[in-house]
């Protein structure tokens, strides 16, 4: 960019310039690009998790389009006569037969199916990991709450898209999944049976549902996802990306690389890596071998009937729930389905969506945050996150209890009981342990700042005492460690004000203040700049004294490190 010698323009460059000019005069590209192309983005690998989600979604769209050319969303019964011999002559729906055709008679079809399915699984996995990154670093805080909400909607839509897609081939597993879905709808009090009739246009399975699911799967849900991803990325762009604390990074600047060329090059390269890994896995590892499952028949079911992983937590909840049923006015209320399959996910997703607002309410924090938290520095949030994660993982594991039972020679009943107990105790244990670990790390950070880094060198003082030489931590490190600030919990409100008037909303403010004190209760006091300065001058004096006494040989490297502080 600072080059002064311009080589004579070759034909390629002349062509490029002409094209650019042509476009610029019509679209006004220059003005648009000038402001945006040099926009700075901070850099960290964990910021690429959202990109994995984005790229797998693109791969899903591309391969899905290919599949629509050959898939037939119809449950009309036909006799299969394709090239997969073990199913020849068997009656099945056109949906299933066309999926077999894609797998065995369309060139590249099986690979496309496998890429589509693997990419869908990666999509949801990447969304989840990305969400945890955003959660544990506090990136959802003001002003990014709306983007968090968009994210939660994307997560729910992704689950919906996946479930709809899983049900389309009309194989034995997808049919079993739909039957469970119908059962869940049916469990809704009062309107359940009616809802099933509406969705399936009659009794399950009927002929209407698969064509309807198809429209939802290829049109409605991807359209919504696309629109929301666009909104999501526009918000990231205009609100600017957050950054981790570090030297020279503040709440009001962004330290990183320009969108062009660095960020675009990286992102483009990463797209091809994701696409490549997905294709490689799909070429080597079978997914959803529907030809082995056979066509869906209502009288058939197979051991190992499972949903894809992202529905696994619901499957686990269903398998865990005791068979309770209520009778209200003579109507049975199937708690055993209603609670795990509707109430529980409803609660989980509502809690996730509201979390940023709940935390802001408890902490009373109304500031804007563009610097991320290191998870240890928000000990209570981190512990709550691990608590939720534990709850989810226990449900998830129980979803595969049958496979675990056969693989490890255990009783499925004892696994289920162990998981029930773990579901209740595990999250609390996870909370306590995580909080302890975070506080331990906070304490270590404080020690590092105040006492310096242990160098491993032992000195013998003239008094005969042995001491270890400490060295102040580097400036870069100190900037990261100093990022934590003490926050004062909300004080308890006075019962009455100066004039003896009862404080309005007293109860509500008391609860909030108690929660806020609980939130910050055990935090290790953060190091103040004054403390840091004092501590460093102390370390320096000690070293200087040791040097002057001749105990410590003069080391230019060390004194240089010292004088920098």
């Amino acid at each position: 960019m600072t080059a002064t010698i311009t080589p004579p323009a070759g034909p390629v460059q002349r062509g490029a310039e002409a094209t650019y000019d042509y476009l610029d005069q019509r679209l006004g590209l220059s003005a648009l690009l000038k402001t945006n192309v040099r926009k700075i983005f901070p850099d960290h690998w964990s910021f690429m998790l959202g990109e994995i989600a984005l790229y797998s979604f693109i791969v899903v769209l591309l391969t899905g389009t290919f599949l629509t050319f050959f898939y037939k969303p119809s449950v009309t019964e036909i006799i299969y006569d394709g090239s997969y011999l073990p199913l020849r002559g068997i009656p099945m729906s056109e949906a299933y037969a066309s999926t077999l055709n894609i797998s065995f008679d369309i060139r590249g079809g099986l690979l496309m199916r496998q890429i589509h399915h693997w990419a869908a699984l990666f999509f949801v996995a990447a969304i989840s990991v990305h969400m945890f990154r955003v959660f544990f670093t506090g990136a959802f805080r003001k002003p990014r709450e709306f983007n968090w909400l968009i994210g939660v909607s994307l997560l729910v839509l992704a689950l919906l898209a996946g479930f709809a897609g899983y049900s389309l081939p009309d194989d034995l597993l997808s049919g079993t999944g739909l039957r469970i879905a119908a059962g869940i709808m049916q469990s809704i009090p009062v309107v359940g049976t009616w809802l099933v009739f509406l969705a399936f246009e009659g009794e399950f399975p009927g002929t209407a549902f698969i064509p309807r699911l198809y429209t939802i799967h290829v049109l409605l849900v991807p359209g919504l996802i696309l629109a929301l991803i666009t909104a999501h990325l526009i918000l990231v762009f205009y609100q600017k990306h957050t950054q981790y604390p570090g030297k020279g990074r503040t709440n009001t600047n962004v330290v990183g690389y320009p969108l062009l060329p660095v960020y675009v090059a990286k992102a483009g390269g990463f797209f091809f890596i994701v696409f490549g890994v997905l294709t490689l896995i799909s070429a080597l590892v079978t997914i959803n071998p529907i030809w082995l499952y056979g066509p869906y028949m209502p009288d058939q079911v197979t051991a190992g009937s499972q949903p894809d992983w992202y529905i696994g937590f619901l499957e686990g909840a269903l398998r865990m729930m005791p068979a309770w049923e209520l009778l209200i006015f003579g109507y049975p209320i199937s708690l055993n389905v209603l609670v795990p399959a509707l109430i529980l996910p409803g609660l989980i997703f509502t809690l996730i969506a509201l979390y940023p607002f709940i935390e802001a309410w408890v902490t009373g924090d109304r500031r804007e945050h563009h610097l991320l938290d290191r998870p240890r520095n928000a000990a209570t949030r981190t512990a709550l996150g691990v608590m939720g994660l534990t709850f989810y993982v226990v449900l998830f594991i129980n979803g595969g209890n049958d496979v675990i039972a056969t693989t490890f020679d255990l009783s499925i009943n004892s696994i289920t009981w162990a998981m029930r107990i773990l579901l209740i105790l595990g999250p609390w244990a996870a909370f306590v342990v995580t909080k302890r670990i975070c506080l331990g790390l906070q304490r270590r950070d404080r020690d590092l700042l105040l006492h310096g880094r242990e160098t491993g060198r032992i000195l013998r003082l003239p008094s005969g005492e042995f001491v270890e030489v400490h060295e102040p931590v580097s400036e870069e490190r100190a900037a990261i460690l100093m990022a934590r600030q003490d926050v004062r919990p909300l004080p308890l409100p006075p019962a009455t004000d100066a004039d003896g008037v009862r404080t309005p909303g007293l109860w509500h403010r008391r609860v909030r203040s108690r929660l806020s004190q609980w939130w910050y209760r055990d935090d290790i006091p953060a190091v103040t700049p004054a403390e840091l300065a004092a501590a460093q001058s102390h370390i320096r004096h000690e070293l200087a004294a040791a040097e002057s006494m001749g105990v410590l040989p003069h080391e230019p490297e060390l004194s240089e490190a010292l004088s920098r502080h």
Partner: protein
Amino acid sequence: MTGRTLRRQPWAAPALLLLTLIGVGALVAAIDAGTQPATASGAPSQTQVAKGSALFAEGCASCHGPAGEGTTDGPSLIGVGAASVDFQVTTGRMPLAAPNVQAMRKPPSYDREETLALAAYVAALGPGPAIPSGSVVDEWRDASVAKGGELFRVNCAQCHNFAGRGGALSDGRYAPSLMSSTPLEIYEAMLTGPQSMPVFADTSLPPESKAEIIAYIENLKQEPNPGGLDLGRFGPVTEGLFLWTAGMGALVAAAIWIGARVR
């Protein structure tokens, strides 16, 4: 049924020996057993029953009682038939090593001759399903795999999984993988319904259907995987496991690599 296909079976020689021993009348009865569970009482040779009796007293009577009448440690064997003994002993389930929720498949403790002697002895205790003849079992070679698949999904998949890889039942019981079962064992399992498996009598599942099911299982054993590694054919659970270990592992490693590659 030709002699050539018969000879391919590892158990053909001893079976032939037995067949000659029990004579033409018994042969007819044994083939008949395919259509109606016959009493294998077709007069097995005295020496064979005597040998079986001795083996039984030594290895089985402690649990099943001196005359097979059953004890607290093992059920009565009167009327279980030769097929049941043959299945239990060739799959190594009997003699039971230690009381457990379920007898495990293990290498057999008796050779073919001894097994047949034990079977002859138990068959003599009371009428029960006989060992199906080689020709009846071998019918799977010409049977329809596709029909067998359908029958398998209706009758067997709910316990043994869609690809015969096994599955969990309640209270620590399980339906084992069928990938190492021989056609004769599969046939006998259907005839006798070991433990929590139901009996598939010829009245409800005729011999042609049994042959089709065996054909399907044999096909499963050697069918290649067009999609690549099969991850054990357990369905979405192992797929999810692969995703969260190798799959996401690779992508996150790539993200870290690119993230570190600045400028």
